């Protein structure tokens, strides 16, 4: 079973990376860019076959390791098949 975890910075938390990318896109000639925020993305393959159990495990992992909950939020998606 496959899980996808999106980790994004909480609102208002400074995102130096996003800021730099915004600037770079501008100097590459892209216009009308209002903001860029960068986050992380994880794909985890699990032996677990029960979606509920998988979700619970992934949630645990996200809290413990994948996301720094002091400054980041995370969202989990489970692939049924």
């Amino acid at each position, binding site marked *: 079973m496959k899980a996808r975890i999106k980790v994004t910075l*909480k609102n*208002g*938390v*400074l*995102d*130096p990376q996003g*800021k*730099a990318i915004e*600037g770079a896109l501008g100097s590459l000639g892209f216009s009308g860019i209002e903001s860029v925020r960068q986050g992380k993305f994880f794909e985890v393959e699990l032996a677990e076959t029960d979606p509920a159990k998988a979700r619970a495990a992934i949630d645990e992992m996200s809290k*413990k*390791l994948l996301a*720094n909950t*002091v*400054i980041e939020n995370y969202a989990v998606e489970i692939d049924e098949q």
Partner: protein
Amino acid sequence: MIPNDVRITPELVAEHGLKPDEYQRILDLIGREPTLTELGIFSAMWNEHCSYKSSKKWLRTLPTTGPRVICGPGENAGVVDIGDGQAIIFKMESHNHPSYIEPHEGAATGVGGILRDVFTMGARPVAALNALRFGEPDHPRTRHIVSGVVAGIGGYGNSFGVPTIGGEVNFDPSYNGNCLVNAFAAGLADTDKIFYSEAKGVGLPLVYLGSKTGRDGIHGATMASAEFGEDSEEKRPTVQIGDPFSEKLLLEACLELMASGAVIAIQDMGAAGLTCSAVEMGAKGGLGVELDLDKVPCREEGMTAYEMMLSESQERMLMVLDPAREKDAEAIFVKWGLDFAVVGKTTDDLRFRVSRHGDIMADLPIKELGDQAPEYDRPFVKTAKPKQLAPADVAAPNDLGEVLTKILALPDMCSRRWIWEQYDHLIQGNTAIGPGGDAAVIRVENGPKGLAFSLDVSPRYCAADPVEGGKQAVAECWRNLTAVGAEPLAVTDNLNFGNPEKPEIMGQFVGCIEGIGEACRALDFPVVSGNVSLYNETNGKGILPTPAIGAVGLLPDYEKRATIAFKAEKEALIVIGETKGHLGQSIYLRDIVGKRDDASAPPPVDLGLERRNGDFVRGEIRAGNLTAVHDVSDGGILVAAAEMAMAGGIGVSLKPQTDLPLHCWAFGEDQARYLVTLAEAEADAFIARARETGVPAARIGTTGGHELTLDGGVPISLTGMKEAHEGWLPAYMAAGAEL
């Protein structure tokens, strides 16, 4: 008219860390109820971190002047003359609470803050060091904090481009809930191009430079002085994120701007950013300040005056500019891609006035906010004098060699390589002695001068006897600088203590300052900058008193420096200074015999002997007579000798001439001692020279082979010692899940 939106309740006052009597003082000062913004401003200016209200009285007792001191405490950093029209500018500052809450960003922004303090004065940073204190290794949070703090310090300094060349690390249960991250930075400037924060001239533009303002770290300053309770989790969202890239741009832009002659006064935005910097600049210059917050570059929508005044967004500066040069100044900042905005002006009415959307949000007397903030004379009880421990009272081990190997692998004694290999200690190409020696040494651009740096304190000594412990911290710094051949110039300090409202904690503080002051006076070692961090407690448990000392020394010629590594076989190993086998508060007593919190006295510090022995060793180094030098500290002679052997990859056989029990001789921590090596043929003449100057010197061994042997005892292989010494920290960190 001031719109007074929010009622100021006693709860709100308490939430801002202000005591009822302090709030009363505010009411008396302004003759009306403050606005919420004003309350925030007072809480920021009057908290411990910015006002030094509990410590000022005692800081005044420190010696802060000397022939080389250009600027002592009171500015962003201390300034010391190193000749040839050059000055070294340095300071140490804590970021303890933020680092406990978010280790990586807390430590990173701590480094960013101290670097700013240094380049705000016109200096290009040339060295960074850090003094770190973590909880016991087995505590569930310790590994996470170690890995985050180290990565944060490295991540910031490496990207900014300053060599991180030294520091110190301890583990102790008293730091379980309150780690200490003390960051030191030093920079070079020309003595005629130093910049200060005192605003000069009425009606001049106040310019905001650097990154945009967001809601970062609002109440960070209040947090940094608030004792941690169970709710510290809730304080989390106030943590700031460091942006070393912007800091590097800010450095280059500021130095370019300063060179252009446009800068009249400059102050970095540190704790309580805009508030502290604007008030400090005005108050110091005897001027008022007017801020129009609508002009402040913001990162987020709809920020209130309160939020803007308390934001601790990083990588920002405030300047008073020569109006004639405003355009050139702006051009420089545009070139470096940084924000630049005129946000206010200086006035002659000594008021601090802040407006937002046309409303006056704050109108306060600037002096009382700034240099006339409240001051306390807190009650204290002196720590009881500990009892001396007789050498005979400490049992001898069956196998000294086994004990040595154990000691070399202790958390407090093992190699810190795992940490400093994550720091770029080579950048700038001037590193002469990197991490791992007694003091770090850099070449002053193009030489021949060199500068030496060391951070030291032995918290366990300070806990047992604050006065001796304070003296010892200064003496050990002085000794470390001497051991590389440097002339000790001046110190900065970072005084980390528990809750000063507790008389016994205040007693530790007062005692340590007394010791520090006495030592600095005796060694002509003035205190030119520093920082106080109080309330380092969690749920009422205080940390060990930890007055970290950071010291700077000067080498006239960096080529004439000494290092700890044995250089050749068959050289004479000599101990300088008297060995009395003092085991009170020693590593041996604490970690081998197992007496933590033991009440015995730490080794006494005789400052006269320190100076006499040190001056002799320095003279011999500069005369080129010594091949290796190492000061004797934690762990005593045997550990010092082992460290020299491991560093040089050459063994040693030790033949102590002593009537002391061997373990007292080997592990005693008597002060004012050094181990030195030199060619066999020169040993006797050297010892004679020492005796002439009244300096005790005794031959204790000969270098050679690949083992350390003690008086015919079982030889210990260098490889075995190295494995023990290098192995602990990497193994400990690998055992955890940290990334």
